[in-house]
């Protein structure tokens, strides 16, 4: 990271030299490395099965882009890119990913007939056209940012001058957009309660009603996870008096994910000890910390 920053610095100083048609070696190096990473990242974004991997790939691409911004004299934007985009927005993505608990890998089998090859074709075509456009455009030499940045004494003051003068109205409107979107998100995420909240009394009565029909229903509170010398985490099941594991004491989500910590069985008791009913097998002294799958 620091090497990249250094490269950025050198590129930035080089840029101050004026109109260019070719960049310096530092920026060239940065570009080729960054471009490779970002293209690979983009490909990873598209083709990774797990959404989390995609998100990470995207974050990588964004960081590369932030470096490019800086290298091109948009220092403020580069920082914002990292702080806002990579920091905030990507985190929002990850947060939502976790919130809705999607971690099952998405099947990449295409269901719409012809969609995939058509999409590839159109994308290639579009990219080719765009590249063709750029290739044929009379772009001329690059003016560089030095004059513009220097106008108000640096990149940030210059941007501020522009933003709060010429683009003031747009700036205000964008704030309205942000507020509206925040409101919208709240409205959308809000779940309207359609029935009155059920009191504890009602819940208890209900529970017993169900118990009367189905004895397997548990009317008592769920057992707490186990608390042992070995572990006291939520994924550690409690032991029942007979030494067996109380599955119910572990959170259902963890159970479903098979994340229930195993326990090292205690040394097998002597037959006379077994006779007095203490068949439980407390955790062995040699219990390791490794996870073990517990057969259900």
């Amino acid at each position, binding site marked *: 990271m620091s090497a990249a920053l250094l490269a950025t610095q050198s590129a930035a100083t080089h840029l101050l030299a004026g109109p260019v048609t070719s*960049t310096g070696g530092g*920026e*060239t190096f940065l*570009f*080729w490395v960054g471009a490779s990473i*970002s*293209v690979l990242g*983009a*490909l990873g*974004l*598209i083709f990774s099965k797990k*959404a989390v991997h*995609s998100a990470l790939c*995207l974050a990588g*691409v964004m960081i590369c*882009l932030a470096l*490019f*911004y800086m290298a091109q004299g*948009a220092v403020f*934007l580069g920082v*914002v890119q990292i702080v*806002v*985009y990579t920091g*905030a*927005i990507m985190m*929002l*993505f990850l947060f939502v990913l976790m919130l*809705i608990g*999607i971690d099952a890998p*998405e099947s990449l089998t295409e*269901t719409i007939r012809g*969609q*995939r090859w058509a999409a*590839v074709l159109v*994308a290639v075509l*579009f*990219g080719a056209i*765009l*590249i063709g456009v*750029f290739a044929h455009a009379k*772009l001329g030499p*690059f*003016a*560089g*940012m030095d*004059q*513009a*940045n220097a106008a108000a004494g640096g990149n940030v003051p*210059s*941007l501020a001058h*522009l933003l709060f003068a010429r*683009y003031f109205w*747009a700036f205000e409107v*964008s704030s309205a*957009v942000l507020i509206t*979107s*925040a409101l*919208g*998100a709240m409205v959308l*995420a809000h779940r309207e309660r359609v029935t009155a909240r059920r009191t504890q009394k009602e819940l208890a009565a209900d529970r017993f009603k169900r118990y009367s029909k189905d004895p397997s229903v548990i009317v008592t509170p769920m057992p707490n996870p186990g608390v042992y010398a070995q572990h006291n985490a939520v994924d550690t099941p409690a032991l029942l008096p007979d030494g067996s594991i109380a599955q119910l004491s572990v959170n259902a989500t963890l159970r479903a994910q098979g994340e229930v910590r195993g326990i090292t069985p205690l040394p097998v008791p002597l037959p006379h000890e077994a006779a007095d009913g203490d068949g439980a097998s407390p955790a062995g002294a040699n219990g390791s910390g490794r996870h073990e799958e517990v057969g259900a």
Partner: protein
Amino acid sequence: MNPDSYLYLSAILFSLGALGVLIRRDAIVVFMCIELMLNAANLAFVTFSRMHGRLDGQIFAFFTMVVAAAEVVVGLAIIITVFRTRRSASVDDANLLKY
């Protein structure tokens, strides 16, 4: 290296983002691909800004970020809402509005 290369990179990234939108079904990934497209556009803005020696391009990229942020917020909220009711975030599952 010619600074035009940034533009080519931007084009490639944009197309890849679009490709992702077209072939991925997970709404969140689709959203990410959209972000990629926006970022590709931003890169082009910054490059053009440098080309013309004016800051307006950067301002534009700045606004793009604002809009992207707003869009992500609302979009993710929609995804959550949809997920709540349908237990699915696949864009293909929401296909009732058709012929």
